[in-house]
């Protein structure tokens, strides 16, 4: 840093505003929180009152029982992510927030599809499931349930494929994500 008063003149024109821009992409925020009652309500409430939309949200334990992990996805086209994370940081029970870089992240979601399938269609459905590395977890005379894990895109693609068979219902967990490499998320 040196001593005060080191003279490198500065022109005001050089100054640039810190970016508060909308990034235009989906952000996966991995948030470590204290495992205390009401924490999820605090997070959800914060999003609601600041007008931020949560696209998906998952909560689960970590290897430390005092700490839970919340993974949520937010659309950076609609909200200033910088402001979202700063507001989250103000919650006393929030320990750490990481805005995961897509390239350095493995993200997965699990989905269950209940598709109507009689005898003729069943074979074709199972073939599609196999291509997507899905698993048939239940079969009845009129329907099958297929479990698929993968990225959000893959699950969306699978949904497109099975919809014509008669999609009875679908459930998705929302994404969880972990950073690549040796460092902790």
């Amino acid at each position, binding site marked *: *840093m040196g*001593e*005060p*008063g*080191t*003279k*490198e*003149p*500065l*022109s*005001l024109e050089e*100054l*640039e*505003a*810190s*970016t*508060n821009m909308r990034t235009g992409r989906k952000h996966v925020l991995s948030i470590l*929180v*204290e495992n205390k*009652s*009401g924490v999820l*309500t*605090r997070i959800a*409430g914060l999003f609601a*009152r600041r007008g931020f939309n949560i696209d998906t949200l998952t909560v689960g334990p970590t290897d430390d029982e005092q700490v839970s992990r919340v993974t949520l996805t937010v659309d950076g086209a609609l909200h200033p992510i*910088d*402001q979202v994370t*700063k*507001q989250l*940081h*103000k*919650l*006393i*029970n*929030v*320990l750490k927030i990481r805005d995961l870089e897509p390239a350095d992240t493995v993200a997965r979601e699990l989905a269950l599809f209940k598709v109507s399938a009689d005898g003729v269609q069943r074979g074709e459905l199972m073939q599609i499931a196999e291509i997507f590395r899905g698993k048939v977890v239940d079969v009845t005379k009129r329907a099958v349930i297929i479990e698929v894990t993968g990225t959000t895109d893959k699950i969306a693609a699978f949904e497109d494929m099975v919809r014509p068979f008669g999609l009875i219902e679908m459930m998705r967990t929302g994404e969880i994500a972990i950073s690549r490499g040796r460092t902790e998320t």
Partner: protein
Amino acid sequence: MRAVDAVMECLKAEGVEVVFGLPGGANLPTYDAFVTGGLRHILVRHEAGGGHAAEGYAKATGKVGVAFATSGPGATNLITPITDAMMDSVPVVFITGQVRTELLGTDGFQEADTIGITMPVVKHSFMITRPQEIPRAIHEAFHIARSGRPGPVLVDIPQDLSRAEIDYEPVTDLRLPGYQPRVEGNQKQIRQAAKALAAAQRPVIYAGGGVVNAEASEELTEFATSDRFPVTCTLMGLGAFPAPHAQWLGMLGMHGTRAANYAMDEADLICAVGARFDDRITGKLSEFAPRAKFIHIDVDPAEISKNVPAHIPIVGDAKHVLAKLLIEYRAIGADPERLAAWWTRIEGWKEKYPLAYEDSADNEIKPQYMVQALFEATGGEAIVTSDVGQHQMWAAQYYDFPKARRWINSGGLGTMGFGLPAAMGAAVGCPDRVVCCIAGDGSVQMNAQELATCAQEQIPIKVFIMNNGFLGMVRQWQELFWDGKYSHVETGEFPDFVKLAEAYGATGLRFEDKTTLVADMKRAIETPGPVLVDVRVTREENTYPMIPAGQAAREMVG
């Protein structure tokens, strides 16, 4: 000992001098503990009064205010003070009783989900689930309330847990791993700010309540006067820079001075300190200070670039950052002469557009004069609280506050009924100082019941009601922006405030003559005990100057 007795010990360990509260079923054990607890408790007449009194105490003293209430309606009556404390960053700990744990969630008698209801408006809250947690929760509540950006913290204690026996040991450590406010400020950024200030031709320092909260008015003054930096303060910051002063521009914003607003409009560099670019300051955001770069110093990182993108963001409290900024700035040795042209321009505005009003030709008291008279009667040395509305703006404009913590009002939330109980709290916290409330005739009735508290406790607040028989600010907006059609704004002659004061056991007076007003006010101030004065002022006077809502500083009218 009982958990409630431990609560008393914790409060004393935190240096609490006084608690404002009201007992009820769910906090009966707590009130039993007050009998031998060795703490001063002031019985308020409505929990909102207690909450605002705790705020007034906190704002006047800089210490944490404390308010107690019972469950259900007691707690819901606190919502307004809690929200007010959140908006204005006031350190207050609220401790509420809750129904017994076996009744939780059953819609029990006087049950309300206090934690849930208050969640959006607290800095943090603690729901007690085991009695042993109580001491730690209380200490953590105080720490969170007073540190970083101050704010309200609530502790909700179920009745059965509060009377349980616990092993009380003083808590010496806090376990708040997710809470580490940064106060120091990044040295590199501070140096950058000093350079920018040295390069600026048309700088303005825009200071807010954060300077008051950080006890940084000396640092602000020293920094501003280390060069000829023009200074303006927000409504919450008044007193942080001593007024009047050659470098003082007056308050900025909707009812600020033209000099302050025009200076912001033409500035090439604005140094915001502990201020949050509220819409009452910026007006139309896209046209706010269009030529300026921004240094933004704030202890709350989320405020920086929230409304206006900062060019030099500095996360830290005003006291630390301004002290360092001064060292950096002095070392540069900037030439004050570069600001000569800027000052010529500012002096031009000050001269051409001073705060002014047309005085009455007869004995009628103009509301602006009422504030000037109070300034004279108190020698400018009183703590002044206010409610919300025209009287608040006139008080802010015409009472020159020489020091911080002399001006106490509800800025962010704009809570009518704040002034009287806040004065009560300020008077309890500063017993050696004259405490006056400039109230509105509409606002004052929203917590007038606390006059009984003041009478019982002999808290000598002097309340001057600026009585124009209208909800004045709403009337003004209806006149200016709703074609002069008055809708439900006239309050007339009700109540008779002199009789009301007497009924409460306070002194009631009525002043109607401007020629004797200063002497009358002095007489009121010298009267022992609480005094309520009905000051009859011009009925339809407008607060000017004014930037109409959503417009730019250049559009100032009046």
